[in-house]
């Protein structure tokens, strides 16, 4: 198993009492497989993804990622885990505006102190079809292009598992299709697991596994 969760619960303080955003989330995912998380807006999908990727901590429950007990790690250890094992694609791209497309893609390799970040960056940028935009800055790229850079960056992480939070949510249907195809296509060339949050039933049906959230709980 690449990912296992058990009785995951997330509360946030809200006034006097606590607001339960996620409750009793238990599932697992085999290595190299893909998982779709669906559900209406506000059902807790992004929160769950953040927990799974180690960007945030759960109130209670367990997460085991590639054999490591994520819930037992502190923030510094989680950072190292993210560096070694996790890739992430956001709905709002989250590129660094002061870096060019190529530099954005090189970033994960730099952080890992790999030998030739540039070669790897150029490779993945070509893989998403943006070789000719290497030197462009994010504000010179369209939304679809920015998301392709973000996907190249996620794959450049050489992660065991890749998380994508509504990667097509900010894009028009045509670009959305392009992005989701790209995601599956590049993913098929690696043995990464893929966890993808989406509204898109088409996209969800391409995944090996699917869970649906409603008001913070998994419904079958």
């Amino acid at each position: 198993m690449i990912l296992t969760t058990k009785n995951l619960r997330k509360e946030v303080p809200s006034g006097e009492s606590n607001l339960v955003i996620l409750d009793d989330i238990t599932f697992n995912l085999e290595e190299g497989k893909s998982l779709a998380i669906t559900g209406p807006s506000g059902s807790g999908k992004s929160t769950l993804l953040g927990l799974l990727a180690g960007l945030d901590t759960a109130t209670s429950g367990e997460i085991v990622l590639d054999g490591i007990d994520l819930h037992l790690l502190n923030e510094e250890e989680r950072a190292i885990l993210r560096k070694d094992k996790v890739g992430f694609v956001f709905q709002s791209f989250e590129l660094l505006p002061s870096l060019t497309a190529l530099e954005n893609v090189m970033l994960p390799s730099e952080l890992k102190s790999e030998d030739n970040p540039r070669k790897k960056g150029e490779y993945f940028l070509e893989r998403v079809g943006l070789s000719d935009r290497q030197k462009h800055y994010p504000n010179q790229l369209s939304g679809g292009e920015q998301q392709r850079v973000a996907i190249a960056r996620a794959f450049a992480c050489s992660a065991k598992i890749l998380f994508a939070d509504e990667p097509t949510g900010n894009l028009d249907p045509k670009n959305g299709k392009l992005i989701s195809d790209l995601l599956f296509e590049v993913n098929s060339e690696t043995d990464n697991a893929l966890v993808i949050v989406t509204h898109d039933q088409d996209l969800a049906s391409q995944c090996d596994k699917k869970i649906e959230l409603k008001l913070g709980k998994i419904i079958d």
Partner: protein
Amino acid sequence: MLATLSFKLFMREIRSGYLTSMLLSLVLAVTIVSGISLFTDRLEKVLSSETQEFLGGDLKFESNDTSIKDVLETLNLKDSKSSEMAILASVIFSEEEMQLSSIKAVDNAYPLIGELELENSSGTYKTTESPTPGNIWMDERLKNLLSLEYGDKIYLGDATFVFEATIIYEPDRGSTNFAFAPKTIMNIGDIDKTNLIQPGSRVEYNYLFTGPDEEISQIRNILEENRNQGDDIESLDEDDSSLGKTIDRSENFFLLGGLIAVLLSACTIGISSQRFARRHISYVAILKTLGMNLFQIRGLYLLLFLYTTLLTLVLGLTFGWLLQSNFISLMDSYFPTELPAPSLYPLYVTCVTVLICQFGFIYPHISKLLDISPMRVLKNDISFNQNILPIFFMGLMAFLLLLYIYTNQITLSLIIFSGVIIFSFIGIGCIYLLLGKSKLGLGAQDPISLALSELRRRRLSNSFQIFAFTVAIGLSLITFSASKNLLGSWQDSIPENSPNNFAINITKEDKESMKIFLAGNDIEVDLFYPVANAQIVRTKDKDDIIDRNFNITWVEDLPGQNEIVDGDWFQEGVENGISISDEIAERYNLNMNDEIILQMEDGSIETYIQSIRAVNWESFSPNFFVIGHPSLFKEKSSTHITSFFIPEAKQKVAAELMREFRTVSVFSVEELIKQVRDIVNQVTKALNSILLLTCLSALFLAFSALQDGFDQRRHQAAILRTLGATGRFIRTSSLIEFSILGLVSGLLGSAIAQTGVYFIEARVFETIPGFYPEIWFMGPIIGILIVSGLCLYLVNGLMKQSPKELLKLQT
């Protein structure tokens, strides 16, 4: 509707804390400016009335003859008053005793300013009259020395007088040159009867004037035109007393502190309004898409800033008032009268300052904000760095304007201004040169390469930060160093155990027994300086008498508190020459190596000018205009002067000394020393609070400059952490980056401070400028510590939030 909306916006901004640093710096600036200008305004008023009283008028003309009277008669004075007095020294006889006294003969206009306090058998009383002919007033000491009762007969020259009253207080204390001798006041109409004034006798005539400024300056011009060599003109702005100088210099320091605090605050305001504008880009864009027109939006923001201005003025003026009343209460026991109410000038300065800050540092950002097209927001393009130069330029102009308003000197303003600009450019240039061209990638392999690449990448915003840090460090170092120098020079002028008693009129015979007496009482005594009177005549032009009597002494070694400014002190083997003070060199146009004749009571001496000295007249030790080589004076008769410190516990010794040596005049300057010391202590407290406030403004500036940079870093840190950078990694890298910025700014700040201190010492405090090594190591150390300390604080704030929360905050 606009008003309610803008008020809501205002309250929201205040609550969110984003306006805090801008508000705080504005309030701080207003507090310091209004506090200092209120204080100095009141201080100046009280001082000028004190000085006026000390001088005896607004203008004083000193001469050795009455030739100016003819000129004065041609003057057609409408609103001014004048008074004549003659000052001389003579021996006064009572039935049993005799005593040397300084005599002030005054006309009926005396006193022009203030009133005298006298005492007779029926008690003390105040008067604004001069003594009637035939009557004479004397001070307490003289009354005792002559064993007088009120109504006793007094003999002065060929005339007889009646002792009418004791002088408790006379307003024009600055009038007498023989201040050491006990004093007599008589009517000038009686002078001829005494036959005291003969050709060649030593008399000084004083002409005092009061009146409106225009007439006084008119009189001054006429006096200047008709003055002879040796005549002296003194006016209110030339208070040379050590107290006057102390207060004058601290006033300069207060104004300097105020200026610096304002400049620092202005920079902070500039930075925080930039930050404010950046935060409001999407807000403005949304208002525009919702159909608000430019006019309305402009109105909205102008109202917002009107509220800010009002709030800061109310708070700042309140705090400023408290500040000045605190300062005043520290010092008011030294002023005899209730301090006058301040004029409107401080209020004006404060409002002008706030206005300049608004228009120079806030308005440009807002007006740029209004240009934002709604498209930018839809494209999620919130970068705001393009074309910031016009805004920066506006800020610089406002900076210069503030400098000018506060210094009132265009050259000084330009010097400070260009100093700041040049040093900042040097620093930015150094950074550019050292770092070289940007390399590909963020350099996130290790903290050091990330730090260096960040420095390269953020050149523009780094330049602003360096500018801000440099200004903060440089200006606080200037304040620090100026206050330290000021205090140092004060402490030097009155060292612990400095002589608090002077003894004059010591004869050769008394000299040895007095030495024994003092040694017997464990009192350390300074040198016994021989004193004689001499007139200087030029050898070349014997008619050109420098008609003034100088106290002259002769010693082997240069006395302390004296500094040779031209020529050399007496060398071994050369037994000739005199050393004169730079004042008389200038006043009588005497130059190095001029051949001169010293005419003394018992013969003349031909010699030359060997050196010119600067004398510290503020010091409490015997000072001389003329010092000669001892071997020239072997045959000359003289009395001696010395000074010594009598501790509090041995005050009885002073009385004993006076009883033992009746012809010696002993007088104490203890009171004066105490007063100067007390004032210095109180002023020090005020100086320190100014220093504290200035440093606080500097800290605000450094903090807001950093905070501004961190807004841009927040997003990057979140993404780096998402990609697996640890908190430690980011912290280390930021620390390296900001330590470098701090180091560079610190060095530049030191350079600015050293230059600034040079000009301040030379032009504001008028002392000899020095080199201060401590500035050079304090700057970099403070730079690194403060900048990296603040940076650590901000980074830790970022690390407390999870990357997820950070990214959420971004959008």
